[in-house]
């Protein structure tokens, strides 16, 4: 799977699977940080779950129609995100509706995968990620997607923040809250497609919510919270990989566990220092 190289030039470093894994984790954190902040602020946690779980259905469709998995995931995540926003705008009771959508998308995806002829699919790779098997082309997709999302959010930042505060305040400033919601929907679908390889469908939402929630403990402005979430996501990715390497634990869950540890320590420290 990997070749151990002795020359440590830039290109050769990418031949090391651990380096590629670390870069994949950091790449994801760059997009998941600021997007996760919006997911937390707008209480979209379940929305993220529904979209992420739909990724499994995307995998099944991609295998059936022989298109790249990223394309299938992106397509289905986009469809799911659009469906959820549409329902939300029609005023459905979101909690139950999202629960139904999230879990049925996952179940339907798993059923659909069992129908894929020929190949035996390694399901756990899609459910929990396979970051140690990230290839150079995977890295290109992850960084390309992440940087696109980060650039999109940076470009729309002030509009997104205003729309998050209130639709009316946004409208008075000439900002269409629906359009900004669509920007977030799009960003979410891209992040889900990109994150599938890194932490898997079951834990994508965790990588959005936990670093941002951990950053809330010390953040005094929206911007510090978003950057803090990137930093915490990066530390969690590297720490989780180290743990996985040292103790032979599954990489994706180890990364999320590391993020959860940062959250707990950060919250505790925040509570104590605020006294």
């Amino acid at each position, binding site marked *: 799977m990997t070749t151990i190289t002795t020359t440590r030039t830039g290109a050769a470093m990418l031949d090391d699977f651990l380096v590629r894994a670390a870069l994949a984790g950091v790449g994801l954190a760059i997009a998941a940080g600021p997007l996760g902040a919006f997911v*937390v*602020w*707008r*209480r979209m946690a379940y929305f993220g779950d529904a979209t992420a779980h739909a990724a499994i259905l995307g995998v099944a469709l991609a295998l059936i129609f022989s298109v790249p998995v990223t394309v299938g995931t992106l397509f289905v995540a986009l469809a799911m995100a659009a469906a959820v926003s549409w329902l939300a705008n029609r005023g459905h009771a979101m909690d139950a509706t999202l629960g139904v959508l999230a879990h049925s998308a996952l179940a339907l995806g798993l059923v659909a995968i069992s129908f894929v002829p020929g190949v035996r699919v390694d399901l756990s790779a899609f459910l929990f990620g396979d970051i140690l098997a990230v290839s150079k082309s995977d890295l290109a997709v992850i960084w390309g997607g992440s940087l696109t999302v980060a650039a999109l959010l940076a470009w729309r930042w*002030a*509009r997104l*923040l*205003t729309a*998050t*505060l*209130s*639709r*009316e*305040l*946004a*409208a*008075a*400033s000439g*900002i269409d*809250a629906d359009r900004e919601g669509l920007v977030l929907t799009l960003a979410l679908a891209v992040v889900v497609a990109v994150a599938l390889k890194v932490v898997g469908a079951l834990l994508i939402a965790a990588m959005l919510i936990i670093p941002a*929630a951990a950053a*809330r403990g010390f*953040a*005094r*402005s*929206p*911007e*510090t*919270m978003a950057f803090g979430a990137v930093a915490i996501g990066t530390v969690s990715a590297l720490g989780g990989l180290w743990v996985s390497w040292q103790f032979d634990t599954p990489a994706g869950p180890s990364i999320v566990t590391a993020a959860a540890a940062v959250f707990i320590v950060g919250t505790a420290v925040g509570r104590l220092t605020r006294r």
Partner: protein
Amino acid sequence: MSLISAQDVSVSYGGATVLEHVSLEVEPGEIVTLVGPNGSGKSTLVKVLLGVQKPDRGRVTRARRLRIGYVPQKLHIDASLPMPVARFLSLPARKPAGRLAEVLERTGVPGLEHRQMADLSGGQFQRVLLARALLSDPQLLVLDEPTQGLDQPGEAAFYDLLETVRRETGAGVFMVSHDLHVVMSASDRVICLNHHICCQGTPTVVRDAPEYHALFGRGTHGALALYQHEHDHDHDHDHAHGGGHA
């Protein structure tokens, strides 16, 4: 040329008619106050004017590139969103620190820049909302129950400031209010709404209109009737009043 006008606007939610054939306009430099009982469609009308709610019938016309300063009735900022006052004032467009200090001084809450919005009292919060509205150099101020949470002197200062802003900038003001002082002294024109426009005109004309008395109860004096109305519905404003007196 009006700053903003609504022509024959009708809105209904799930069969219930909220606004029926409402037409109005606000001219530059004019203070127009909208009064009406709870559930009379005041907030919906504001949403229609801001462009958040699409009318089922009729249309809203705005002056080209109209700058609107909006003060909402209430604004809930999620506890997960850290928001210092200076950042809030700079949304969506960044403003120099000098201007922020100046407008906070003007609205009676100097030096709050680095406080968190969540830590402000009801009165401070309301003034910061007004400060943000003023920062956009508005041609039209849209104020939804803007003195909620302010005490009596704060309220008086608020209307003084409104008058000054109108005089200095020529901005038009569209205000939703329960407050009779405003209706009587600060407005040029009062519109009385109960799904449709019942009556409108100068404060004195509206005060004497039978439609107005029918809507707010037949007291010995219009002023008294409106006050009683407000107090009858005090439970709806508990949080705002509580915040103001805290």
